[in-house]
């Protein structure tokens, strides 16, 4: 008998643990969307919010590399300040701002998502600071020998596109329409990074992503330019927010993004000047 007691206890415990597991599952089932879309909002300094002045920047996921670098430059130029970033899908960020998230600066990957915020009178006079162009991304060894946009219409070639609801998908539709091509993708991904992953892993033969993403992949995928990309250029607007907790820093940061130094960082990452 005494031997069985621990076992019973274990059973009880294991029964108890089932309940939190269910909760966790339900929560993650419903909530994972936003999480999955935003490749980790990283803050550059964990001690943020102490006595130091903090600037909070909401920026599109495709700006992760460039804005992190500009954030470091900003902190060096303004000793004592800390820049916190929230990177994610522009649409999600816009929703968060409209719902009252305390942000100082918003940099979006499309004018449409910025409009959500300006329509709510939460940002004034956005400025276009960069442009992004589509490229065909193929695995480094290009197994299907894709070399132009027309190849994507070949039913034997597996193609991944972004869903039309997100900026890179809208741009892809525009480019394909401009070329008069009908492409049936195997998947419509939720953001450009997910689309790129499918190419990196060789699950698809080709995809339409931004040139900046091809450069950021560091040689794991090959980018191919195509003329119709010129018809589907994506503008990136930036604005200070009217309810910014740190309006002075916000203005300074936007100035940095628009400065030659900012342009430099963006160009190196593959963005075009507006």
């Amino acid at each position, binding site marked *: 008998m005494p031997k069985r007691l621990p076992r019973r206890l274990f059973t009880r415990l*294991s029964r108890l643990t089932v309940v939190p597991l269910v909760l966790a599952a339900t929560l993650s089932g419903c909530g*994972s969307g936003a999480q*999955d879309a935003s490749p980790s909002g990283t803050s550059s300094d964990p001690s943020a919010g102490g006595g130091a002045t903090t600037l909070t920047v909401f920026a599109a996921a495709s700006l992760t590399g460039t804005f992190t670098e500009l954030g470091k430059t900003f902190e060096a130029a303004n000793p004592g300040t800390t820049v916190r970033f929230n990177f994610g899908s522009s649409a999600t960020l816009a929703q968060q701002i409209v719902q009252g998230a305390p942000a100082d600066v918003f940099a979006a990957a499309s004018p449409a998502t910025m409009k959500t915020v300006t329509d709510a009178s939460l940002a004034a006079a956005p400025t276009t600071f960069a442009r992004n162009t589509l490229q065909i991304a193929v695995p480094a060894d290009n197994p299907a020998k894709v070399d132009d946009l027309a190849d994507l219409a070949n039913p034997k070639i597996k193609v991944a596109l972004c869903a039309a*609801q997100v900026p890179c998908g809208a741009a892809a539709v525009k480019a394909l329409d401009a070329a008069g091509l009908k492409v049936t*993708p195997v*998947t419509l991904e*939720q953001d450009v990074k997910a689309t790129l*992953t499918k190419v990196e*892993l060789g*699950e698809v033969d080709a995809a339409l992503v931004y040139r900046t993403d091809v450069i950021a992949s560091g040689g794991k995928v090959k980018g191919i330019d195509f003329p119709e990309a010129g018809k589907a250029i994506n503008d990136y607007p930036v604005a200070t927010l009217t309810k910014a907790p740190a309006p002075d820093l916000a203005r300074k940061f936007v100035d940095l993004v628009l400065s030659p130094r900012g342009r430099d960082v963006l160009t190196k990452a593959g963005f075009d000047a507006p």
Partner: protein
Amino acid sequence: MIRSRRRPHRSQGRPPWLLLLPATLGIAFLVLPLAGLLVRAPWPTMAERLAEPQVLQALRLSLVTATLATLACLLLGVPLAWLLARVTFPGRRLLRALITVPLVLPPVVGGVALLLVLGRRGLIGQWLDETLGVTLPFTTAGVVVAEAFVAMPFLVISVEGALRAADTRLEEAAATLGASRMTVFRRVTLPLVAPGVLAGAVLCWARALGEFGATITFAGNFPGQTQTMPLAVYLALETEPEAAVVLSLVLLAVSVAILASLRDRWTGTA
């Protein structure tokens, strides 16, 4: 023994506030977000949004894949739970810990892991593609695989718990009467733990139905093929938050209705 001593307390007096208060907070915490969805739902346009063919398509795909995933989990998970509960072998503890990996892993990472194994260039997927011409990513079968991967631990843990709580003396008695181990499993063990299996299957089904991350990563997102309701909800959120609310409510209503009706049928109580 512990049980029989405690039982009389169950109906005595009112429940202590020390338990009642957190329980009430717990209910509010779980139910309020649902209330939020109900309040924000665009009721006037609800009917026309529901009539969109893509909604029904995604809903049907969700129900079919979640059910197939649950069947697959039952087929593999019940024997696995039995192995963990009834057979002593080295490394059993480690194995039990490994089985919970899909619970801890962020689903998107689970999806990537599946791609690395079953993808077109994956360890096994490469071989499947070359010898059988089968590729799982971007197919409905791929959705079932992703859902089963994420949902199986729920089934295994509940069934194992039930097996451990079940009275092994009945199994021993059957064995002394000459029943083989398989017969004991079929005729004694399984009926004994049926409620645990059922509970596990329900959990498993619910988890599979809500699966997002592993599905979109491993199986992709294409209407009619791999776009389940959670995927449709997520993409609707990008442009039309209202449509996302409608889709979420549909998924909730259907799953609650199915679970409630199953409960009625199987246990005879509401």
